[in-house]
């Protein structure tokens, strides 16, 4: 059996002398969507940074498509791993088209002009993210959701087998959340990418992930298919909340329903 | 103006040589210093001195030179700074230079000066603070050679060296007069005076002391239309005006050779005819007793024998 596309093994990392994650191992195979969940400060974003070559781990390693990520040059790494950050801001306002084309940077010369193929990739990415109609608008004039979709398009244009996403649905309205998740699922199913996504919203994680890894205090405390991980007991232990978990009426995937202490039945 | 200068020279000559001296007065006895005295300086400030000052501070190399020329070198207890380099003894005197082109007031007070002579003008603040300490501050600004002679006489009166000053002024006027007589025999030559070439091309215009000296030395500067005393000038205009003589101030940091090598300067008549001269800026930019030497140097450059 071939090695999974993304292998994070025994990673311990932090900032300065402060440790943020300890001995974390995660594997994401081609065609898989894996979710990272956990309370604030549990180390999700740190792990994503380690996996994106932005933060060198103190120990342990990251392998992408069989190669040591930190042994690669930045350009080679960017052809293998695409990141969708939470926020994107340019010092000076690029248009959406220019922004998306920057996703092709790992394939371009330092002068930065793109070939027909690069333009085709950028165009397809914009269509997939439903922003083709915004192509000539400056990024800073867009709504939060439109910007976020531009960022997703930029990462799509990067055409890397591994995609890392940090809460890609934060600024989106319901319709675009659904579309974005469709996009995420499509990347794995249709393009055989390995997708690792940080989720705050457990229901979204459950809806789209093949597996979830739960972090708490920098360690993996649970891992497995959503229906195995997302239980009442897990929510009480990791998040410290009382909540009900039901299977979704159509998909059967777990659905978390919150309960606010002290507030009883509505009238 | 030139005629006025000749007049001063003649009067001085008459006073010292032509007038019969009374037999009962020994010629070496100086006229009595007139203290207490009250004089108004070039900034309109009236200064009163009860007696001849004994400890003098100068704030301009020209005034240091003036005091030494009046034989008062021993009374100079403070000078502005490194530029006070003439005569050689002056370089030994304490510096009072502070920052931002202002004297260090504490230093002046510590030197127990009773008179400060300023040759630049301005600086009301430090002058006021010294006056509050009962230190007399007198400002002298010379824009012409005549001003300078008058200022030297004023320095003489302030220091009680009236006779020495009169003698010095008479000598200077005499020397200037004979230079004027000499250059007056020939038509004025057109000239250009370079103050600086690095960064900007700077020269002198009407209203500056040097410009006055140039005219006195028999030159008609091509910068006579300048609106400023030290204007930045066009090299193109210089080439077009093509002065007969090119003068470089030593403070320009340039040399005769460097001037001749500059792009386009080989088209100048003065370069072609070897009439480019370096002038010691200390002799002409300092309104002091050595100005006559500067005048001589200018006249020699402009009107060789």
């Amino acid at each position, binding site marked *: 059996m071939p090695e999974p596309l993304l292998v994070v093994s025994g990673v311990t990392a932090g900032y300065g002398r402060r440790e943020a994650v300890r001995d974390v191992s995660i594997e994401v195979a081609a065609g898989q969507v894996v979710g990272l969940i956990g309370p604030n400060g549990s180390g999700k974003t740190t792990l994503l940074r380690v996996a994106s070559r932005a933060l060198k781990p103190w120990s342990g390693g990251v392998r992408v498509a069989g190669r040591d990520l930190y042994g690669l040059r930045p350009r080679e790494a960017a052809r293998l791993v695409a990141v969708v950050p939470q926020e994107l801001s340019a010092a*000076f306002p690029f248009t959406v088209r220019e922004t998306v084309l920057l996703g092709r940077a790992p394939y371009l010369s330092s002068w930065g002009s793109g070939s027909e193929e690069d333009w085709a990739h950028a165009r397809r990415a914009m269509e997939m993210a439903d922003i083709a109609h915004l*192509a000539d608008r400056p990024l800073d004039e867009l709504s939060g959701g439109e910007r976020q979709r531009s960022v997703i398009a930029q990462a799509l244009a990067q055409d890397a087998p591994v995609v890392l996403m940090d809460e890609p649905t934060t600024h989106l309205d319901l319709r675009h959340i659904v579309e974005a998740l469709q996009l995420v699922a499509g990347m794995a199913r249709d393009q055989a990418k390995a997708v690792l996504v940080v989720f705050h919203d457990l229901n979204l994680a459950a809806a789209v992930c093949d597996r979830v890894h739960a972090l708490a205090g920098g360690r993996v405390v649970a891992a497995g298919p959503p229906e195995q991980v997302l239980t009442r007991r897990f929510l009480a232990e990791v998040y410290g909340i009382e909540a009900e978990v039901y299977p979704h009426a159509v998909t059967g995937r777990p659905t978390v329903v919150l309960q606010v202490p002290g507030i009883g039945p509505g009238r | 103006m030139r005629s006025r200068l000749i007049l001063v020279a003649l009067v001085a000559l008459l006073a010292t040589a032509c007038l019969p001296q009374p037999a009962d007065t020994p010629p070496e006895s100086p006229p009595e210093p007139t203290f207490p005295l009250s004089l108004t300086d070039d900034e309109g400030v009236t200064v009163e001195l009860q007696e001849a000052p004994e400890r003098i501070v100068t704030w301009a190399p020209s005034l240091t030179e003036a005091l030494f020329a009046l034989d008062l070198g021993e009374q100079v207890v403070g000078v502005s700074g490194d530029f006070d380099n003439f005569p050689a003894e002056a370089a030994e005197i304490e510096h009072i230079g502070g920052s931002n082109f202002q004297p260090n007031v504490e230093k002046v007070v510590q030197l127990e000066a009773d008179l400060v002579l300023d040759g630049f003008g301005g600086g009301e603040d430090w002058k006021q603070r010294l006056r509050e300490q009962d230190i007399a501050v007198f400002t002298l600004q010379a824009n012409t050679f005549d001003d300078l002679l008058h200022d030297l006489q004023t320095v003489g009166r302030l220091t009680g060296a009236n006779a020495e000053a009169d003698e010095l002024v008479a000598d200077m006027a005499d020397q200037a007069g004979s230079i004027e007589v000499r250059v007056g025999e020939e038509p004025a030559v057109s000239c250009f005076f370079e103050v600086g*070439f690095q*960064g900007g091309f700077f020269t002198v215009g009407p209203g500056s002391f040097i410009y006055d000296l140039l005219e006195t030395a028999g030159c008609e500067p091509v910068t006579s239309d300048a609106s400023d005393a030290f204007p930045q000038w066009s090299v*193109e*205009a210089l080439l*077009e005006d093509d002065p007969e003589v090119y003068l470089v101030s030593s403070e320009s940091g340039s040399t005769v050779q460097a001037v001749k090598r500059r792009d386009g300067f080989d088209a100048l008549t003065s370069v072609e005819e070897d009439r480019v001269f370096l002038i010691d800026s200390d002799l002409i930019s300092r309104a002091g007793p050595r100005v006559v030497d500067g005048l001589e140097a200018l006249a020699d450059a402009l009107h060789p024998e």
Partner: protein
Amino acid sequence: MREAGARNGRRRGGRGLLAALALLLAGSVLVAVAAGAVRISPATIVRLFAWKLGLAGPPDNVPDTTAVILFQLRLPRVVLAGIVGAALAVSGAVFQALFRNALADPAIIGVSSGAALGAIAVLLTGTAGALGGLAVSGAAFVGALLTAFLVYRLARIGPTVHVTTLLLGGIAVAAVISACMTLVMSFSSQSVQSIYFWLLGGLGQRGWGAIAIAGPLVGAGLLAAALFAGHLNLSLLGEERSGQLGLDVERFKRVMLVVGSLLAAAAVSVSGLIGFVGLMTPHILRLVGGPDHRILLPSVVLGGASFMILADLASRVVVSPEEIPVGAVTALLGGPFFLWLLRREQREASAHA
């Protein structure tokens, strides 16, 4: 088809902008060559150029000085103004991308002062000697580079460069440098005046010799900047994001600090301190043509050269035969512009807060 047309929208707009700027530069050169303290008729200029280019014999009835004025004084001055303007403007564009801030300009962040200090040190100690102008440029480059690295380290807090720290850091560094200059100058009181004039900035007296020194240095700097146009674009997204998109951020920053400093130093060593060109030109052209450096850099070269040529033209014809320091002309135009930009930045910052 429509797709392709739209895709090329800004690029075509960019071509239009470049064409317009090329026309502006050509016009500026023509006017600047034609006008000056000494009047030379256009017909005479054409005849003189024809003669120089070997297309015609020496023109009759034209005094020798006219040819000297045109070819030895005016033409090198125009060419040098163009070189210095392009260098300062591209240096500004590079620093603005690197600092991700529209207020970065070699003069404001103290890099020009650093270059001037280096140049003065050589001028005063007379170590220039055999190497001459090249030693001055070299020392200016070292001064500029050290200042650039220092200000960059000061201004960067975490991943971002803050406007306040950038400006304050620049001001503080420039103040320290100016104190050093005063100190250096006070140790060699005799040449203070010529140094003072040197600092004032000017293009008039440097001639073809300066072009021979600055030309190749600036050419190399412009080429290097242009080669990295795509990376400059990437860097606008911030260090982390540009790293994720494959940029070797640390190496890129070092290279760009060197390129920006080289350009600023080459300009300062032949023209003294001339401010605001590097600030205004990239900013205005970014508003017109967008932030894409593949369009911005060439347009900044053309625009910076034109601006400097016109500023120098103003400095020598407004009160001719007297001249105004060219730095005063650019500051007169650039000062108010800087204040406007600062207010705009602050308004935007408070709007985003």
